[in-house]
């Protein structure tokens, strides 16, 4: 089983530093193609950007199959979320979390970066129940048109460009007059998400719960559980990690627990599933014996 700390993800130490607004020069802690975990509060004035590193690393060496690498405690966002939304953020049902990343909006070049053609979208979908690790807990996405891929890529880039151009550091609290998060993730009416990034009807975010969602794999007290999907705008390019055209492939799940800890749990390899099954049996057996 591959289970390790975030050695190739941006370090937690880096993520514990909240970025400062700046006037010029690109954010050195962000690069196009990075996966951004973001938060907003419906009706609030603050949003939060948190860079989780290159989106492609969450995909693994193939798309949507059991080759991802788990990474626990990628980041500790508690102090940031407290600053942005108050000490009760974990039980605040007006707070929403989502994921989005794209390398380029270019629709003409056949360039491949980290296995991804331009306009490859990485976006979240809320899990409707925690369910099982390695299984999608959401219906996923299909983008109907090539133009839709460009629209989606532009929307994600527009959101994340604010993070790149207006802040320095891996985490930023961004007010809604500056942030692109609230612009790209709208609401139809209170509590009902509108279209995200111009193409995802119903949005891509998960709404906070009054209580936690429970335990998901290695993570307890999960407050948000976001399935990560990769959507390809092109196929058949040299060097790309293949997948179905414009259909989201489930790559794993990002969780945020009640103390702000961010973790990624990939689709486990078959041997890992067997191991997890044995481990679960062992835990149950131990609990049963302790009750005797």
């Amino acid at each position, binding site marked *: 089983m591959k289970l390790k700390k975030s050695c190739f993800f941006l370090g937690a130490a880096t993520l514990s530093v909240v970025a400062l607004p700046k006037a010029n020069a690109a954010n050195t802690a962000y690069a196009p193609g990075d996966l951004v975990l973001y938060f907003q509060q419906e009706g609030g004035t603050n949003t939060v950007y948190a860079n989780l590193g290159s989106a492609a690393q969450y995909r693994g060496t193939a798309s949507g199959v059991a080759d991802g690498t788990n990474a626990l405690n990628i980041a500790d966002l508690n102090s940031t979320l407290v600053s942005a939304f108050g000490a009760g953020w974990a039980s605040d049902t007006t707070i929403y979390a989502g994921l989005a990343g794209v390398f380029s909006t270019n629709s003409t070049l056949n360039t491949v970066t980290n296995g991804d053609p331009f306009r490859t979208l990485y976006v979240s979908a809320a899990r409707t129940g925690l369910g099982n690790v390695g299984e999608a807990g959401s219906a996923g996405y*299909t983008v*109907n*048109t090539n133009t839709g891929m460009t629209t989606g890529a532009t929307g994600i880039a527009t959101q994340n460009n604010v993070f790149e151009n207006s802040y320095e550091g891996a985490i930023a609290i961004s007010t809604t007059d500056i942030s692109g998060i609230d612009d790209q993730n709208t609401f139809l009416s209170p*509590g009902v*998400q509108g279209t995200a990034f111009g193409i995802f009807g119903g949005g891509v975010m998960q709404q906070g719960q009054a209580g936690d969602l429970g335990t998901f794999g290695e993570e307890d007290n999960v407050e948000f559980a976001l399935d990560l999907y990769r959507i390809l705008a092109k196929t058949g390019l040299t060097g790309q990690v293949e997948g179905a055209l414009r259909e989201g492939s489930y790559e794993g799940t990002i969780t945020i627990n009640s103390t702000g800890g961010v973790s990624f749990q990939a689709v486990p390899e078959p041997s890992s599933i067997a191991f997890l099954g044995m481990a679960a049996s062992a835990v149950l057996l131990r609990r049963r014996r302790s009750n005797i």
Partner: protein
Amino acid sequence: MNTKFFAGLAIVSTAAAIPAYADVTVDITGATAFRAATLLSIKARFDASGVAYQYSHDQAAGAFSGATRAIFKGTFPGVSGITTIRTSFNGSVEGIRALVDSPASDATYYSNIAGNFVTAAAIGGGETHTNTVGFSKTTESAQAEIAFSDVSKSSTPYSGFSLQPANAACGVVVFTMLTNEGSTVSNVTSQQFRALMASGMQPLSLFTGNPADETFVFGTGRNDGSGTRTTYLAESGYGITTPVKQFVTNVSTSTALSTIQLVPAGGVNTPALPGQSAANASTVWGQDVDGNGGYNSGSTLRTDMGKTGTSVTVLDETGTDIFGEPVRADLVTFLSLNDAVTARNNGAVFCAYNGVKLDDIAAGGSTMSAADKAKVTNGLYTAWGYQQMYRRNDITSGDAVTVYNGIRNAIPANLGAAGIPIADMVVGREVDGGIVAP
């Protein structure tokens, strides 16, 4: 009584004795736009089994494709045992609600949702129907497995609920702008329609460019439980949840409008005026305000669009006569092609939308010509949306999925005038009212 529950108990209690095949019941609800295509597809699948089956419906003999309530019972290809499929179409938004709402947690579930399906008592051998001895209208409550909708669930208050599959689109539903008999409005742009929805009435000159046209055009349409309304508010760019101002007919003859009124909050004044209905109120988005209601029935709207408006008393939401005397009133609305053809046959007139008209079907016939269809499939004409065919989120495998797939795959061959197969579309869109492009 939920017979599915008891059927489940029966299966459990006899599982040890019977080697086989659990019978399955699949209930279908939602929008009516693909009603005929759905019923024809169900029948086609039972036909394909090559085994005799029975069906019963609430229409006249041979007219089952127009049924609201129908029941089929027999062998469905790919499903062991007996498959029963029942329909009870109740509208787009209510259909989605029927799948996401929980009977266990909502005490008013069955009273809110017309998810009442005829029982097997309706089955009488072969085809039975309204006028057949043996047909029964005895109904029972059940939560549907499948629902059709003219709009995506993301355009409804149930956006946050999950349904299957990720891509539920099973066809394209085409709409048209329509004006009532005798109107001189021939084209409606998105701008004009937004202006009409914002204020409820606009000078006729706005639509004709002729300053001598000093009478008024009145906006009319459905309440917010309607997929058609959701489509026209999205397509025109007005906004799905932005309150509108619409008029409905209070009094009319079979050929002429007599009184129209801006829909009052709640749909009814106190005391009620003739022809008012509480069902016309818009309650889905919590915006039951003056003007925001509309027809709760598409068939009533299309009937009224076939009437002239040469001398009409126009009331505001309080019931006060706005002009103090009867005036000429032109109505503009937006209907699915099926409904528009029915209205046209009664005198209503197809309008161009943003300068593009479905010329052939506007003149006659009930199906689009190749030229009309090409305007849609290539993106010149944008008044269309995807028909969604959803499954409940908990239905991810098994016989219900087999039934779902069987019907969905049969729909393109049974669409008729209802729509266009997705495979024929050169362009697409991502959300209701979204950009139309390849």
